[in-house]
């Protein structure tokens, strides 16, 4: 029976792996479980997700199948006793080498994807970064836009609460600080998550791809993306939810001017 089980499992796993790597991006597992990605290099993250899922699926099927096979076969023995074997150098080698190769593959692929994401904001012709300060604290996000001095984290910043407006097609750089405990900036549609450790600046840069945004964006509408804290930060962690509004260049300027004018409002 072993003769059929093992090749079948290997075939299944390999099939899943091939499907995930060769299938169009939209049909992959990553694209199915996350909201549509809207960032430059986001496809690479989904692809990596698919590859890891395929690899793990293969290992899961293999090990679970082998366990099931052993259970079923063992149950057939009338005497209730198993057979005993002592060490096998070949087996030892296989179950050390297989995971080692798998992990090495993952490491290489992850470094590749990391580079794709890291390089995206500094690509030619994208212009100067749009800098926003992220002030994370229990239990809300405060976003600080540069005032007249052009720098964030100064007294003349324009501050919004739980609402982050960003441009598309231009590098965005977040300078994140935490006031109290570790928080984590997680925007699933941006395929990015970064821990914010108190006491240090955490920088995160990305480019939102206008072509990835839902139709209608170019006509001046906005796209809304979710934003949450992905590090359990206290009793209000679940409430630490914000929203990202992706606006066209004009709309963003209008929005920023309005937020800036609010500081002088008397109501």
């Amino acid at each position, binding site marked *: 029976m072993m003769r059929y089980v093992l090749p079948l499992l290997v075939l299944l796993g390999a099939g899943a792996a091939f499907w995930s790597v060769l299938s169009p991006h939209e049909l992959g597992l990553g694209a199915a479980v996350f909201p549509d990605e809207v960032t430059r290099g986001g496809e690479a993250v989904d692809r990596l997700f698919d590859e890891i899922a395929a690899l793990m699926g293969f290992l899961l099927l293999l090990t679970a199948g082998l366990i099931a096979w052993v*259970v079923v076969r063992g149950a057939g023995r009338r005497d209730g006793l198993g057979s005993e074997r002592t060490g096998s150098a070949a087996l030892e080698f296989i179950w050390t080498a297989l995971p080692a190769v798998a992990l090495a593959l993952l490491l290489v692929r992850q470094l590749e994807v990391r580079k794709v994401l890291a390089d995206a904001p500094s690509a030619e012709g994208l212009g*100067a970064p749009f*800098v926003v300060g992220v002030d994370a604290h229990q*239990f809300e996000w405060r976003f600080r836009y540069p005032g007249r001095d052009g720098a964030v984290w100064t007294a003349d910043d324009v501050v919004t609460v739980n*609402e982050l407006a960003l441009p598309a097609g231009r590098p965005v750089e977040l300078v994140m600080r935490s006031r109290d405990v570790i928080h984590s900036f997680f925007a699933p549609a941006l395929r990015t998550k970064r821990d914010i450790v108190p006491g240090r600046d955490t920088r995160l840069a990305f480019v939102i791809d206008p072509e990835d945004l839902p139709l209608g964006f170019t006509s001046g509408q906005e796209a809304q993306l979710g934003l949450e804290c992905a590090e359990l930060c206290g009793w209000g962690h679940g409430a630490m939810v914000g929203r990202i509004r992706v606006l066209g260049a004009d709309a963003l300027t209008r929005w920023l001017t309005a937020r800036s004018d609010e500081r*002088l409002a*008397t*109501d």
Partner: protein
Amino acid sequence: MTALSGLVALGGFVALLGAGCGLEPVPPVMEFTVSPDTQFAFEDEGLEPADAAVAAGQVEGALQLLFGSPARPGYLVLEAWEADERDPNFGQDELDDAAWEAVARDNEVRFARQLEAVRKGDHVQVPRPWGAVATWARWKWAFSPLIEARVDPSNLHPSSPVPGDSDEPSFTWADEAERFWQRQYPALVESAALYQRHCVHCHGVTGAGDGPSGVTLEPAPRDFRRGVFKWSAVEAGHRPRRADLLRVLERGVEGTAMPSFARLTRAEREGLVDWVRLLAVRGETELLVTALAAQRGSVTPELATQAYGRTWSRWDEAADRLAEVPAMRDPDAFTPEDVARGAALFAGDTAKCTTCHGAAGHGDGDAIWELDEDGARTRRLDLWGAPSAPRDLTLGVFHGGDRPADLYRRIRYGIGGTIMPAADPGLSEDDVFALVAYVLSLRGPRFAPATGEVPR
């Protein structure tokens, strides 16, 4: 056999997992109670504890008549209101056009799928909105002819005027269906449920600030029952406007545990304002009824209605009690001379800021202390019984907001319920501006400035 029992165990485990997913926690039903202080107030007036308990029970009954319960809330509509068709049970009646626009904007996002179906003329196929049980019931009830396709969507709604008969715009069923989703506004009972989900764990069922997580907080959550809210644009100690409560919900109170609720839709936030106001009016009425009844010896429905009317009149005068501020100056345009003049005023004898805020603005002045009966030094208390803690101005965290207008209001009009008084009338508008400039300058280099690093 082993394989079989293994399969059975596995099946049981999967079934358990499935059951766990289906178990939705049913929130306990909120019930209004009277404050323990109500009974103490009767005891203070010389009633035996048993009689005081009866009187407190009568107060509870009266409040039940005036406000209902969280499960069935409803204000008593006063006769005086009937002429102008006023009914505080419908907070949406108080929204202006700009507010309705904001409500519609948020509802466009929240009910996008429903609106899409309605606009396509797919009234039968309108999907059930997630979580909005009462909304769904309203939709099924009010639009059943449309849903069951017994009417043509382009037909006039029966409640709208016949075209040509008057100048009023006439609405078709299709228009009405679109408006239904755009103008969705929570009823009081829905807002109570939302309050139970987001607010009750700090602010408590009756709004006393005694929720289980609230008791550990410093500063304590607001006790609504006094009707005094610190962060408002009315003169200190007066009842807030809707806009004030809404602003706190939207911005949170920086430096405290009150977070921003901007992630709720505008309609939901307005609904929470309705509910907070109900709790505040109820708490104030309770205090007033108790005070009146303790003097007269009995609680009557007339007395309760009288206290209710008086409480409402306090809320109604908020519009006349606006804390006016002049046109604001750009905080970036404050000059060193402004700051220097503000510093002199801060330490001077007219403004007397240093008496509480301390010479360096750390909030450590001498005037926050008083001597108790035993001659021990204790902090002066605020309206809610908490020890006074004047703001440390060097931190740059201002609970009521750091806009110049916010600081101007705090200085000119004081902070209701606290030892922060209104400014001496001897201070001119320019003087207060100079103080604002000085206070803003005190926050100093709190942060290290940062600019972009991504190369072009």
